[in-house]
């Protein structure tokens, strides 16, 4: 009957079993999502690809994730996490195998775009874990879920090159190793469907009252919220423009125009959803007890933009970066070094949360973002003249600040408006993806060094933004030595 501890070995406990089942599902979704990154030279060689084309591929991989999050969120509300996660993995498995056997660059690009969907898996598990764990241990459980699942990209970087070259070998080695991840995801999707349950026995799966948009509590916040959605469409449009004849000519003028129209439609749809959710508030206002400041959400979203956004971007380009910088490095070694970044997830994320609890929310976040800014400046200076070890240390230090920053962001998320934590986490998470698309799109315009500088500079801007966060109110109770729980008088 231990309460706030999570005993991970007690697999008899159905909630622990669910946690393990779910983080593995998320882990595999990340493996599939980033299985191309460490295989860069093999894929580029097979298709005789230009660097621009490769960069475009990286961007496509994260593009669809943004709208997918909205759609997946709605599907989870409708069908429950079990069905959605299983279907997502099965579909990802199929697309992944098709990707592995693509014959043209166009096919490759299309399938990478479709695989962007799998990146939205995060939301599903958050919901699942939330259903199973009581409030006092849900934070830890979601930390384990998120941290271990994110590790999937590192695992892919670590193992896939070896799998491709050593185990399968040959010209098509990369195809087989990508297929392997696809088959794994497909099989696990079925396994997950058979073993996972949406809720503990006897509980009811509750549908959120209002979905489709976040409830805000003032007219000013309403417009700020609408405004916060604009960057998403701007960056998607920039990406399309870059792919169109005006840029790398990967898609036709016609396709590009269709995309622009689609974005407008999507924006209007989203606006109507937001309006629907907030209609009541706009006409009648909102109860005093229900007020919160949207600015808090906005700042956290931008903080996640530079932390998680840069992580996703860097994780997909880092193996290639090592390979380019250090001529003669083996693909497996580059993959392993590239994974150094995601590796830090296991410790850095929880540390960020701990810093935040210990030293104050705003101060921790400011320092961590400041740290990652310096970290990226350092990375921008890496040349072939650097010893490999030093480069790896620099990468790991930088990634520590990045992921601790993510932890610090999510330490504040539940404190803004408890009952809307899920939705606020959703918006914040979506901005992480917007960040990834933004940075990767930027990457298609510039060289690696400038790319790191761009991240560093944007981090400084966000560091100033974090000063707008107001410290959320803390605990209101204390426990006396004899065990009596009592209220702290607030003067």
């Amino acid at each position, binding site marked *: *009957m231990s*309460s*706030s501890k999570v005993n991970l070995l007690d697999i008899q406990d159905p909630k622990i079993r669910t946690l393990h089942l779910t983080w593995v599902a998320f882990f595999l979704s990340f493996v599939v999502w980033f299985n191309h990154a460490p295989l860069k030279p093999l894929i580029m060689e097979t298709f005789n690809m230009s660097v621009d084309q490769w960069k475009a591929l990286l961007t496509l991989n994260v593009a669809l994730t943004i709208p997918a999050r909205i759609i997946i969120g709605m599907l989870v*509300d*409708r069908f*429950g996490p079990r069905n959605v996660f299983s279907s997502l993995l099965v579909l990802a498995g199929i697309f992944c195998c098709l990707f592995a056997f693509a014959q043209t660059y166009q096919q490759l690009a299309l399938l990478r775009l479709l695989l962007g969907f799998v990146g939205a898996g995060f939301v599903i598990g958050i919901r699942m874990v*939330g*259903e*199973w*764990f*009581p*409030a*006092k241990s*849900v934070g830890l459980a979601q930390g384990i879920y998120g941290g271990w699942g994110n590790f999937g990209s590192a695992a892919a970087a670590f193992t896939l090159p070896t799998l491709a070259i050593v185990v399968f070998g040959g010209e098509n080695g990369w195809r087989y190793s990508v297929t392997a991840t696809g088959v794994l995801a497909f099989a696990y999707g079925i396994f997950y469907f058979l073993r996972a349950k*949406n*809720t*503990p*026995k*006897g*509980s*009811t*799966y*509750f*549908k*959120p*009252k*209002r979905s489709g948009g976040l409830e805000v509590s003032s007219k000013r916040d309403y417009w700020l919220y609408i405004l916060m959605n604009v960057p998403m469409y701007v960056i998607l449009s920039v990406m399309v423009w870059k792919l169109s004849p005006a840029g790398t000519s990967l898609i036709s003028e016609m396709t590009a125009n269709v995309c622009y129209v689609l974005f407008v439609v999507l924006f209007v749809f989203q606006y109507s959803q937001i309006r629907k959710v907030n209609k*009541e508030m706009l006409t*009648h206002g909102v*109860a*005093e*007890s*229900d007020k919160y400041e949207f600015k808090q959400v906005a700042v956290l979203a931008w903080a996640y933009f530079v932390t998680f956004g840069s992580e996703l971007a860097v994780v997909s380009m880092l193996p290639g970066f090592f390979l380019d910088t250090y001529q003669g490095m083996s693909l497996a070694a580059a993959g392993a070094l590239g994974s150094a970044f995601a590796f830090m997830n296991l410790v850095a994320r929880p540390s960020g949360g701990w810093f935040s609890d210990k030293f104050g929310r705003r101060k921790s976040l400011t320092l961590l973002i400041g740290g990652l800014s310096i970290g990226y400046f350092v990375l921008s200076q890496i040349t072939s003249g650097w010893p490999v070890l030093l480069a790896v240390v620099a990468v790991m230090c930088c990634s520590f600040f990045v992921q601790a920053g993510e932890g610090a962001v999510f330490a504040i998320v539940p404190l803004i*408006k*408890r*009952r809307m*934590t899920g939705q606020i986490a959703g918006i914040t998470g979506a901005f992480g993806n917007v960040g990834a698309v933004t940075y990767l799109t930027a990457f298609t315009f510039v060289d690696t060094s400038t790319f790191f500088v761009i991240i560093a500079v944007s981090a400084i801007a966000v560091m100033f933004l974090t000063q707008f966060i107001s410290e959320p109110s803390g*605990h*209101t*109770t204390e*426990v006396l030595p*004899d*065990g*009596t*729980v*009592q*209220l702290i008088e607030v003067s």
Partner: protein
Amino acid sequence: MSLEHMSSRLDVVVGQYSSAGIKAVNEDAIGIRIPDGSALIAKGIVAVIADGVSASEGGKVASATAVSGFLSDYYSTHDTWSVETSGSKVLNALNRWLYGQGQHYTTAEKGYVTTFSAVILKSSSAYVFHVGDSRIYRIRAGDIEQITRDHATAVGNGQRYLARAVGIDLNLDVDFHRLDLLAGDLFVLTTDGVHEWLKTRELQDLLHTVVSENTVDARAMDSACEQIVARAMGNGSTDNLSIQLLRINNPGQPEHDDVLASVSTLPFPPALQPGQIIDGWKVLSEIQATSRSEVYLVENQADGTKAVLKAPSANFMDDPEYIERFIMEEWVGSRIASANVVKVIKPPQGRKFLYYLTEYVSGPTLGQLLRERTRLSVVDAQNIIIQAISGLRAFHRRDVLHQDIKPDNMIYSDKGVRIIDFGSCHVAGVGEIKTRISRQKTLGTRDYCAPEYLLNTTISAKSDQFSLGVLLYELLTGKHPFGATYHKCVEEKDFARLHYTPSYKLNPLVPVWLDGAIRRALSIDPEKRYPALSEFAQDIQRPNPAYESDRQVMADRFNSVRFWKVVAGVLLLANLLTWLIVL
């Protein structure tokens, strides 16, 4: 923690006047009641107008009884009853009484007959009960609208015949409806002595001049009533004249904020560890922690009594809807008295945190029992369900639906079966207290909930009966009556396709008549279930001849389709053989 905490800002100024006019006797009756405190929230403000029918001997008595009876009886109905339930029940009782009084007259019209129109103002809504040809008007933003329909038929030569009234018939057909209230609304109740002699337009103009924004006190409203009556008299009214005016200064819209303000002052307790003490209760162990609530076994430090403490989950710290529900849980529990329902304990030392206490009943839940034994003996199962029915009837008597009958919500103690958990209860009266936040609806799968929850049709006490049927079946067989497909049903056609496996097929010891009772309680169509739980209880205890016939069993045990297929096959073969031989 109860409704007494909730204060309302419903603010109404009223006036009324009744006159015999040119007649000798005033057979009209009027009455308004504005209670204070909790009754104002739970029951609201009532205005009643009644016009005793002149043709009848007891017109005066009838109208007076109807008004005074309704005003006192309505407020004595149970707090959890809805306005519709309370009003209809009281009105029906009055009707029956008046009808009984009039029985010795040769024609019903000669008895104790009266019209009846009432408006009840509660939680920013107006509820209207109406029988007969008295009228209720609503004036909103200067526009007058008659919100009742006259139950009168013209029979030529200017005479009118009352089609419906209280006291005419044993069955009373009452018009009931609900309207939203807005500040500034004016309700006008009149008898025909007034509205027959004042055109609606004239009444509107008159009201405009006599009731202004500045008419704030009751005396001014009363004098406005007198002026209108005087005008109707002036127009030549030959009947008794009565009028009531209710002006809404504040409909009580932000009531929900008040509800919250009174309870949100109590903070959520932190996650409790064994050994910690909260308001004099020492935590012994954690019984259950889910994403919605945390339940602990606690011991009173003063006298060592044990109790169960249920605390809200920190996940909902700022969810007013959840908090409202949580408070309602305790309130519902404290009002249900039954040996088969767990008792809510009032904390003797008061409390500084939001939680509630129930008595500690030792013993396994039926769920645990089923996991150990797979199924129970027929006698035990009957016994358990009879007790569960007695507990459930205590809920239903208070217009409360339990809505979550399942094995894990029943404790099997040495003192009998206890129903626990009020978390899903639906309370008719309280459902009307308006909240701006919509209630959550179940979406997913529940093996015990009746089809109507998913089909979105009317939920009633029969929905609890269905759950009880599933429970009894499970106790007897260890299985779900419709198998695993049940929780996948979403639409009507899914339910129609369900196949019921008779319980005696899985457990031969189950008598056929008992299965018949279960089967009826499990009807997909609520209309086909037992009209009352008491009948279900009876059929569980004693064989109902209707279900006793062996034919059903024979049909089930002896697969007739297969039998006839075999017969047909054999005959075909015989035919072929004969044919071959003949050839």
